[in-house]
């Protein structure tokens, strides 16, 4: 994507970056640990699920330069499979979540194989179309119960010992899942694999000429992103005891793009901030129905025209200016 977006990481001193990330991570974790004492825990859990979803999406867009407009298919499909596994097969929650994650990973392999055959704008259109296909599948397949969705999914005992019917226990399990996903993404971005991904984003022909089979890297990133989006969706289904068509709809694909754009594409913490802002907004504007859609659209327009770095991107730029000046 646009060049000005990605310079910060290239130009910043690695050690300073790691220190800054560690500090920010500790602040974030401290906030999440005490959050249930201050805010309604179910709300924070919802935001955490979406934050993980957005982080997974950002792995693909911010670090791979691939704009997927169909990520809802992974969130929604994993939710359906997890809900079905917990309710119909009677699996304990950890296996239900694993089943959901596995399903979206497999879906990611197929969708990825097709989508990476095209670049840029076409990639976005292909993923959007594939997601629409999954949407119609979910609308018609018997196990998803169409418009009703899968309701009253049992939460059960996590790992046989943690009773998820307690909101507090559930909250910390969700926080643990989010943290694991978040750290995995952080690790991937800073691994040699992540570096190659960035090289492909910046200049794919050059990466090819250096001998990298870029197709493999892009597919791996796509599948990883799909799997983690699935983890978010499966967890969400267990938390809300519900899997519904909302999570597979294209508007959900748009929402995760918005979260990432608003928070800051290609930043580590941006998607988390973006997810919390959008979910908070949704909380207050949901009753107003179409006003929420209009607000979302307006944020898109403002971000694209005037605020392309997003919240965290602007913050980083400001910190860097202060350090330099």
């Amino acid at each position, binding site marked *: 994507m646009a060049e000005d977006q990605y310079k910060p990481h290239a130009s910043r001193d690695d050690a300073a970056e790691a220190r800054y990330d560690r500090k920010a991570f500790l602040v974030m974790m401290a906030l999440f640990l005490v959050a249930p004492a201050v805010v309604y825990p179910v709300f924070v859990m919802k935001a955490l699920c979406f934050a993980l979803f957005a982080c997974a999406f950002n792995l693909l867009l911010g670090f791979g330069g691939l704009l997927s407009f169909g990520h809802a298919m992974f969130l929604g499909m994993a939710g359906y499979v997890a809900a079905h596994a917990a309710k119909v097969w009677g699996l304990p929650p950890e296996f239900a979540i694993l089943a959901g994650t596995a399903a979206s990973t497999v879906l990611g392999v197929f969708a990825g194989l097709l989508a990476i055959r095209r670049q840029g704008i076409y990639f976005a259109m292909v993923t959007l*179309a594939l997601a629409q296909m999954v949407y119609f599948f979910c609308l*018609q397949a018997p196990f998803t119960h169409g418009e009703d969705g899968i309701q009253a999914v049992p939460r059960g005992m996590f790992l046989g010992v943690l009773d998820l019917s307690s909101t507090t226990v559930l909250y910390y399990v969700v926080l643990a899942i989010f943290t694991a996903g978040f750290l995995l993404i952080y690790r991937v971005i800073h691994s040699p694999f992540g570096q190659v991904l960035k090289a492909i984003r910046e200049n794919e022909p050059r990466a090819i000429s250096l001998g990298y089979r870029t197709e493999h890297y892009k597919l791996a990133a796509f599948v990883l992103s799909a799997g983690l989006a699935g983890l978010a969706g499966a967890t969400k289904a267990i938390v809300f005891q519900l899997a519904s068509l909302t999570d597979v709809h294209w508007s959900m694909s748009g929402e995760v793009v918005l979260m990432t754009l608003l928070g800051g594409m290609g930043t580590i913490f941006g998607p988390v901030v973006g997810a919390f802002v959008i979910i908070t907004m949704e909380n207050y504007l949901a009753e107003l129905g179409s006003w929420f859609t209009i607000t*979302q659209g307006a944020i898109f327009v403002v971000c*694209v025209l005037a605020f392309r770095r997003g919240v965290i991107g602007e913050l980083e730029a400001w910190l860097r200016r202060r350090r330099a000046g």
Partner: protein
Amino acid sequence: MTEIFGVPTQALFGQLLIGLINGSFYALLSLGLAVIFGLLNIINFTHGAQYMMGAFAAYFLLNKLGLNYWWALVAAPLAVGATGVVVERLMLSRLYKLDHLYGLLLTFGLALIIQGAFRHEYGSAGLPYSIPEILSGGTNLGFMFLPKYRAWVIVASLVVCVGTWFVIERTKLGAYLRAATENPAMVQAFGVNVPRMITLTYGFGVALAGLAGVMAAPIYQVNPLMGADTIIVVFAVVVIGGMGSIMGAVVTGFGLGIVEGLTKVFYPEASNTVIFVIMAIVLMIRPQGLFGSR
């Protein structure tokens, strides 16, 4: 002779006709997308919303100003095209130096705003728009009943598509346009006002969407979300056809409409997804699209 492949001919031809109608709209919409993409390198996500605006414009012209369908056919595309010109001047023109994906994101945001605003004003229920008197009724062709209005839509959209193809491929103006697609800086150096050409091209593409909206108003109900799902199918059509050629967009649009209609007869469960399945197959065999070039 009332059955073909075990399907009553009435049903078969009926669905074929519906397929051709849908195909007309796919062709008109993907034509507009292709024209815009050719010069601006932007995928216009607002296209579905602009199609809807065309239908609403026809509705307002009839109910507020008393102007009938034929006036709407001219006035609504002009009005919708004008909004497109404003959008291009105020917003899109700021993004040409950036990655093309920003254009997609901006137009997606605009689509959300427009669809949200119309839904806020008019709800999700459709508003009726009646078929103009001269085109109501139909003819019995012996093997099927052909409503006049549907025949008109197919013919009109064919004429518009071929006309657009002619202007772009066979006239001086079209030559400028194609030249600017290849190398805008060079065309500018020859004294052609390229920025204005870009603005008008976007306006024209949007006007095509508006025109499709007017023609759709009597068939589908005038509904704030009528373009939202259609545009995703049209995207798939565009991926299948490839955006290299104008004729390609038109042929693919009509062809896929027919395929969709036939699927409704032989395997109705798949009628919603058949175009996406075809897209997946085309991506495997010929990733650049049927008429596309790398």
